[in-house]
């Protein structure tokens, strides 16, 4: 079985998507016949397309960009538009969408798109796994990623056995769709105290950019009158 794992992150090898991809690969527990491509290498589009046409089973993993797919992923999909449908029909596809946003409502439309794309082209669609709150997973210590790693190994194992992702996994991974009221109040309080910004502010300080964080080079900054 020729398997292809596609990393749709513009950050390439140094990305959360690649980390998720490695967990799925562990779930497949095979080294043979698994090919990995990074769509960030946009100049290799032609050979990436050939790898896709050659593969029988494909998992596409990507971060959420503007509540949709990154431009490099759409670029790859658009490259298939003039392909003979017979070459695409019957190919087995699964999709993983992860986001810094913790709620899955941000990614739902993209999942709907991939389902519809699969219908249009005739892919055997295993589903779209949505995972929120993945900002920083690449550099997290193993104990902090143990749960999410196991989730994706489980996805890999299920795909390997019958190219299906159980609804239970999809449902669990996509929870919460939106936060309930107490959590929303908590976030608002953390916002008010500024505590919620700690992660970003630490990086801004490290980069000597903290004083410039509210810069608005093209117009009037938010909160100021025009």
């Amino acid at each position, binding site marked *: 079985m020729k398997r292809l794992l596609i990393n749709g*992150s*513009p*950050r390439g090898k140094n*990305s959360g998507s690649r980390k998720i991809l490695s967990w799925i690969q562990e779930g497949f527990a095979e080294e043979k016949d698994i090919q990995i491509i990074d769509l*960030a290498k*946009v100049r290799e589009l032609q050979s990436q397309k050939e790898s896709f046409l050659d593969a029988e089973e494909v998992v596409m993993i990507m*971060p959420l*960009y*503007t*509540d*949709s*797919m*990154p*431009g*490099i992923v*759409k*670029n790859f*999909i*658009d490259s*298939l*538009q003039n392909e003979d449908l017979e070459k695409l029909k019957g190919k087995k596809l699964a999709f993983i969408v992860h986001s810094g*946003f913790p*709620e899955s*409502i*941000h990614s739902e*439309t*993209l999942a*709907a*798109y991939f389902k*519809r*794309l699969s219908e*249009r082209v005739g892919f055997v669609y295993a589903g779209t796994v949505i995972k929120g709150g993945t900002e920083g997973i690449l550099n997290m210590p193993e104990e902090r990623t143990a749960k999410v790693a196991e989730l994706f190994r489980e996805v890999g194992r299920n795909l390997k056995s019958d190219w299906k992702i159980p609804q239970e996994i999809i449902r669990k991974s996509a929870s919460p769709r*939106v*936060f309930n009221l107490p959590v*929303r109040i908590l*976030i*608002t309080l953390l*916002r008010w105290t500024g505590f*919620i*910004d700690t992660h*970003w502010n630490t*990086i*801004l300080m490290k*980069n000597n*950019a903290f004083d*410039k*964080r*509210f*810069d*608005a*080079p*093209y*117009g*009037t*900054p*938010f*909160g*100021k*009158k*025009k």
Partner: protein
Amino acid sequence: MEIIILNGNPDSSGFDDKLDALASEFSCRGHNVKVISLRDKNINFCNGCFGCWLKTPGLCVHKDDMENILKQMVKSNLVIWASPLIMGGISALLKKTQDRFIPIAHPYIEIYKGECHHIHRYADNSDVALYIEPGKDDTDEDFEITRRFFERFSLNTRTVFRFAAKTDKSVKEVADEALAY
């Protein structure tokens, strides 16, 4: 009113003429309108570096034509995102332009309309609209999914989503809808 039409058509076709006709309609009604043909611009893919958030806030690491487009967009009242449907969605050309929007947001998150959203960098963002040319294989569902993507985009950028229209509407009808606010 200042209106920008972002033409995401990757190849020259009748869709360009339709956008020019729409621009003329706005001009006739006394508005300043500009069609930006994205395929003639040098626009790089966002590389996800977060430099525009964390190193040079508000400024992208890519020095290309997007800088000038963002400057114009920040100052306009309405941006119409226009594209033929390709594989059931907006063109990759328009999508990569949309990705390059993140310098106008902050990394900071707050609850807005019950969901986590990024805080604005600018006092105002231009309103959003969507103008789509479906192909022969595209269904109402394709248009609806595309419309929903832009509804989300508008929510993320805290803007008014003025309309989503297909090219089966006359330019007069589209202009009426755009100006109904």
